[in-house]
């Protein structure tokens, strides 16, 4: 598990857009924009259900130790219309998630970007828009 302490430039705008696109709960009230985090490890479960998808992974620490995390993504209906599905992920295979930690300190994050083991960026996280990756046709 690797964490980065610096807040990205423009984070406030990003957070506001994330809140808007989440459209279900307040991002800024629930997650900490001052605590970005990057997690890498094998996917253990995918919940492709409303109102938000959740992906569970065992994040790998510098010592190789695995720690269970859960990360919230975008709205499944919007992602489905873009061509993504639960099969975008393969259980047991590594993904890398960049996002922000929950304010309550639990191993919970709100995902900004998702990358497969081969480096391909997938889904739109919670921040769909012009930068949102599209599935390979």
């Amino acid at each position, binding site marked *: 598990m690797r964490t980065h302490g610096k807040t990205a430039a423009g984070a406030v705008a990003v957070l506001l857009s994330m809140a808007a696109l989440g459209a279900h709960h307040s991002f800024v*009230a629930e997650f900490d924009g001052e605590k970005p985090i990057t997690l890498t490890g094998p996917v253990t479960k995918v919940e492709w259900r409303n109102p938000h998808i959740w992906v569970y992974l065992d994040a790998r620490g510098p010592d190789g130790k695995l720690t269970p995390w859960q990360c919230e993504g975008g709205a499944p209906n919007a992602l489905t219309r873009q061509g993504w599905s639960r099969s975008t992920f393969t259980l047991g295979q590594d993904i890398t998630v960049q996002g922000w930690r*929950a304010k309550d300190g639990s191993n919970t994050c709100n995902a900004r970007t998702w990358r497969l083991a081969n480096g391909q960026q997938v889904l739109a996280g919670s921040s769909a828009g012009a930068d949102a990756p599209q599935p390979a046709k």
Partner: protein
Amino acid sequence: MHARLRLSTMTIVVCLAAAPPALAQGDLSGVWNKRLVVNTAAAAEPLPFTPEGLKAFNDVWNHIDPTSRCILPGVPRVNTSPYPMQIIQLPDKVVFLYEYMHNFRVIYTDGRRHRPDWEPSLLGDSIGRWDGDTLVIDTVNLTDRTWLDDHGNRHSDALHVTERWRRNSPTELSYEETIDDPKFYSKPWTVKWTIPLAPKDWVIMEYACTDNNKDLYDGHLQNGPLDGSGRNGTAIAVPPPPRK
């Protein structure tokens, strides 16, 4: 020659038979890509708050947005919540099917009046009429348990909403809402925008809000408007300075 004439005549008859009947009313039917409007009052700011309305607006940070707990968005927020909607138009009614939280509304246009005896509700009591090609929906009997939008704009149980729906073109609806709430606003205000037709292959999908609302079930929800906006005065009617 005769055969050609007969064919032409038949063609005209067939065309007349196949032509849609002339409608005094418009045609709103279709699947529409209704999108989230975060601050529905933006174009009407500064809002004409009453003291009670201003107090409610500033009190948003003491409450969880009701939709985060899967309470229906209500009228008019159902029209500005995300995800598509389908409109089915019938001679005496117009049916709105909203993907978001599986809301539906049956708007009768047969001249009936509001019901005098029902409890106030989240969607209220709506009746419709055609004003030329514009569907006008009048809604009363609403509770004060819903918000107007993600920005945390509020309304009271005195809210009276007038919606005006019109098809501008084959691929665009215009939508207008008038918020008349004498408890919270000293005068009515009106906002409007357009809604594009959804791509041809879009259908209304399942959106069961309670299916997996982990933010609620795990206790992560916190108070405040969904857009995270502070109450920095941009939308607040500034009270006059105290008299010396």
